[in-house]
């Protein structure tokens, strides 16, 4: 009798392990695809922000962008749909500080101010980036943007 109970226990553990493994593979696969798509969306948002700063569209956005930090409220936020997944995003900015003067780097008069643009894209739900069993479903990317770069098109 004990050996029968033991064999039942073994079977039960094997079944649970198999189901757990399948679930894990399924989640990992979804996360890999969504992370790749989320990274492309973050790059797209970065490119679009740069393009709108270069064209100053809407008018005044370039002056606004370099006027100070946008953390809360962010510079921009919203959602984009790619395939069947809704990606939420938030763009924030930080002023780059000059350690020698302890002030912002660059001067408005010289049009050489420097900002750090942060793009955060997440897709677990609108209010959080963590999904149980999948971990953090989020992509964060950032880039330094100089005022001179968006004033003078660097294209050849």
């Amino acid at each position, binding site marked *: 009798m004990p050996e029968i109970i033991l064999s039942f226990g073994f079977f039960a553990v094997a079944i649970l392990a198999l189901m757990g493994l399948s679930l894990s593979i399924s989640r990992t696969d979804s996360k890999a695809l969504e992370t790749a798509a989320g990274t*492309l969306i973050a790059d797209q948002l970065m490119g679009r922000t740069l*393009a709108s700063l270069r064209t100053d569209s809407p008018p005044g956005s370039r002056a606004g962008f370099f006027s100070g930090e946008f953390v809360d409220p962010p510079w921009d936020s919203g959602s984009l749909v790619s395939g069947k997944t809704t990606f939420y995003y938030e763009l924030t900015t930080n002023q780059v500080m000059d350690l020698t003067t302890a002030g912002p780097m660059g001067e408005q008069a010289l049009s050489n101010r420097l900002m750090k643009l942060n793009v955060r894209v997440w897709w677990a739900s609108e209010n959080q980036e963590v999904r149980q069993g999948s971990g953090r479903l989020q992509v964060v990317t950032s880039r330094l943007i100089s005022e001179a770069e968006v004033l003078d098109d660097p294209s050849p």
Partner: protein
Amino acid sequence: MVGFSVFTLLMIVLAAALTRSQEVWRRANASNSSQVELRKAFWALDRDLKETTFETVRATTGPVSLTGFDGDAVWFLSAQDPTTGEFLRTDDGHPLWQRNILYYAVVPDQHRQLHGFDCAGGADGDGYETFCPHKVLLRKVIDNPPGAAGPVVGSSDQELLLDVSPYLTRPQGYAPSTGEPGLESVTIAAKNLIEFRASLEPNPGWNGEVSITLSAARIEEASRLIRVGSEPLDSFAQTFSFSLFPPLK
């Protein structure tokens, strides 16, 4: 008797778990295959569009093989030396145009020989075919030197094609087409795509944007559940939406 019943029950659950696991493995494998094709298409477009300028990029609808447009076609001038692969510039730093590069999606001819059946096809609301998951993204390199009147768009070495319709042909299986004027090479940038859509500056504020949507299906999974080629693939599609910003001029 009780022991036998429990044992039978466990075996049934184990069989169900095995079946489910097999489905998950199949889905993961199919997903991986389609992601590889999406990445190949992305990297090819990303690399080529970095070696052009936005003012030479054009887009139009692609060929019709089944019941709607197979996708879009995008073409542009490239400053990449066809021999060395180097980016060539004029003395004043502008790109020295070398060739036209054309990308378009198409359902290959001889579909039955390739895949064992024919896609019936079905168009979406925009007139694009979205049922066949076997489209290929072709990359053609075309030499189009300007005529005596000089180029409309381009330089003294290479003129942007104004009409690419003679080049939007269906390959025989995966064999590259030949005989088109100035055609130097044809490569398959990606296989097994559902859609390839491109739009230029979809929003006027996003200057110089080439917006692209690519999708591919988990074909192995879909083929067990639906009649592939004759039904919508929405439940099996994987999509990459991205934007590329070539230099403006």
